[in-house]
């Protein structure tokens, strides 16, 4: 029997008159690799911030690992890992110091924090830069460090906001390897991404949000059967085709930029 690790009920967030997230109902099961997609400004980051306790919902409930986030935030934070939008890294620490510190923030003892930091630096191919300040890292190195910081305490659920944005192919491969390993060991991943090819390859389930509302959700197969495109040749739809069909598609630009 499947176990629900993340559920939202009528989750809502407003900023003044703007409704960023509108009665969102989400359900993610254990060991699912859930891709949360949507165009810019659709409400993805606002949702992930509410799920991780960075933003208070204006309404609705969030349940993570069976616990109500509003009442058990400390317990939930102990059991989840997060790569937030801005990465939130202490940039004046070296990579090694940062991982060590984050491990201890989550209650690991000194020896275990150091041991896991070393392993993660090795795995992430950051060992040669372990003594460099994070401020001097490249964007890809920072992303890898942020992911290492998110998993160092052995979380059960990972929330990742655009983990592949601005990351080169080598770094992306490392990140993917780590995430697949995490899922294989019983973890659950909830990620937002603009890189549809990566989502298509990695994610078992997908949710598409537009204007704060969920407009499609399910496994890739379910989405393929649910979406019909007029005049399509019958081959399996790619995630990009599904996405464009669901959120409104690209405008015809033959008429504009005629000089280009």
């Amino acid at each position, binding site marked *: 029997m499947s176990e629900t690790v993340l559920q939202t009920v009528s989750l809502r967030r407003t900023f003044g008159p703007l409704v960023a997230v509108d009665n969102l109902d989400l359900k993610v099961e254990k060991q699912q690799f859930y891709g949360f997609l949507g165009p810019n400004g659709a409400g993805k980051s606002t949702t992930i911030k509410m799920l*991780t*306790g*960075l*933003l*208070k919902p204006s309404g609705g409930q969030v349940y993570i690992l069976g616990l109500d986030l509003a009442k058990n935030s*400390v*317990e939930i*934070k*102990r059991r989840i890992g*997060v790569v*937030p939008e*801005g*990465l*939130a*890294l*202490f*940039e*004046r*620490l070296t990579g*090694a*110091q940062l*991982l*060590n*510190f*984050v491990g*201890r*923030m*989550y*209650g690991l*003892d*000194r*020896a275990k*924090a*150091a*041991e896991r*930091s*070393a392993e993660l*630096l*090795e795995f992430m191919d950051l*060992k*040669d*830069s*372990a*003594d*460099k*300040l994070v*401020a*001097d890292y490249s964007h890809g190195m920072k992303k890898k460090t942020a992911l290492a*910081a998110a998993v160092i305490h052995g979380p059960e659920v990972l929330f990742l906001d655009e983990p592949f944005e601005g990351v080169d192919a080598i770094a992306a491969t490392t990140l993917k390897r780590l995430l697949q390993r995490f899922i294989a060991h019983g973890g659950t991943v909830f990620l937002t991404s603009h890189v549809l090819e990566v989502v298509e390859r990695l994610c078992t389930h997908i949710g598409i949000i537009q204007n704060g509302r969920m407009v499609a959700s399910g496994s890739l197969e379910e989405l393929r059967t649910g979406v019909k495109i007029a005049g399509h040749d019958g081959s399996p739809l790619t995630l990009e085709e599904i996405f464009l069909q669901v959120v409104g598609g690209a405008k015809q630009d033959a008429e504009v930029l005629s000089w280009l």
Partner: protein
Amino acid sequence: MQVVSFVLGALLVFGICGAFFAGTLALLKSEQPEFLDLLLWAIFLVWQFAPVLFEGYSPGLNFREVARYPVSFRTYFLLNAVYGASDPAALACLLWLLSMWVGILIAQPAWALIAVPAFLLFALFNLFCNRIIIGLFDRFQSTRKGRERMVAVMLVVMLLPQLLQLATANWTNFKLLKIPGWVLDVITPIRRMAPPGVVARALLLDGGEKLVPLLLLGFYSLVVWWLLRRQLRAVYEGEIYAEGYTVKRELKVQPGWRLPGVDEVISAIVEKELHYIRQNARMIVQFVYPMILFLFLSFSRAGKNFFFSRSSAGLLASMAGFLLLSLPNLAYNIFGMDGEAFGRWLLSPLPLRKVLLGKNLTHGGILSAFYLIAAAIVISVSQISWLPAVTVTAAFFAVLVIQLGAGNLCSVYWPKRIELTRMNSRMASSAAGLASLLVVLPVGAISGAVGFAAWYWKLPWLPPVASLVGLALAFVLYPYLLNRAVNYSYDHLEEIAASLGA
């Protein structure tokens, strides 16, 4: 405001024009033309270093960006030179050179003609030389470490006049100061061969002999032109300064610290905060400066008169005051250096109360260590009696604890992201700075009242008792302020995070 500073700047420049004109006139009328080079040295130094000092406040025009546009190298070089010549410091120096030339024209008309090419070559030399220095400065500024070091150097440069003033307060008679002979032996040939001296010789020498210094000046200008051309060519062809390299080394992650008497998490926070301070030159300067100022003051004549003639307790108290002055930089914007990493505290299962406690323990610990070391020195040197020592020490810790508590509140009421690489990025918001004053002023008033009462009614026990009561009150007040700060921050997390860029 900009108009006012422009008018004031223009008045200053024109005032100095008058000074250069009068100086030239006076030197030539009093038949001391050999000192003309001193005026030229002043121009040389301002031209070379004023633009660098001002560039410390703003990045200016980035010529690496200009090189992206479709311009030929010749145009690129010319743009760089014109940009350099239009710098306010360069324009001021050109005006001062012109003032000197007018002075020469009036006092020694025969020299006016040769002064034209000499001054022009001198101006060209200065222009190219300054552009080379700016290029080197840009190269230094292109890395984070370089920028931060530069901010620290700027701070030291800004603080230096105060220290010099204190250091020279002991020199009552400047005429007694004698420059050693070996110094003169070194300075004289440099003065003679350096461009300002060469310009002066071009004026002083007779007939055809003038040609030699003129040719030498031309040679100097040619050398700096060639060096600048070489430097700009490298940038034009795509040299990227910030490209770094990684030193491969064996990976060894040391276990974190374990401090006695505090739990694992607070130990980790203290360790993290100390790493942050240690890796920040600007913060170190701001921490250490009050101590240096205190040392200078205590050894200067004015300081000795003030402190030692009355009581040594004054010395101890002033040192405590200097130390407490550096606290608001850290304690009144406690999350400022974390910036967007403030979000990391929120994502972790740590209660904010523990985070604030850990940070307070670090800042308080550093200041306490400084105080105890300095107090031990003062007490051993001045043989201060125990009563004033206890009074000052208890008062110091009372104010320290109150400042830390008040700082927590200000840190969440008025958080401000600190940009360590920007000179004009303040360490705390203006409101927090004002709040720190509002804490210090009543403390000062109460201390003054207690001191007066003790003196008026001859109650020597009153100050130490008042200090100890103050310390006890501070420890009662601190948890209340801490709780308020924590409660406020949980209610305003989003605003705090937004202010810090999280």
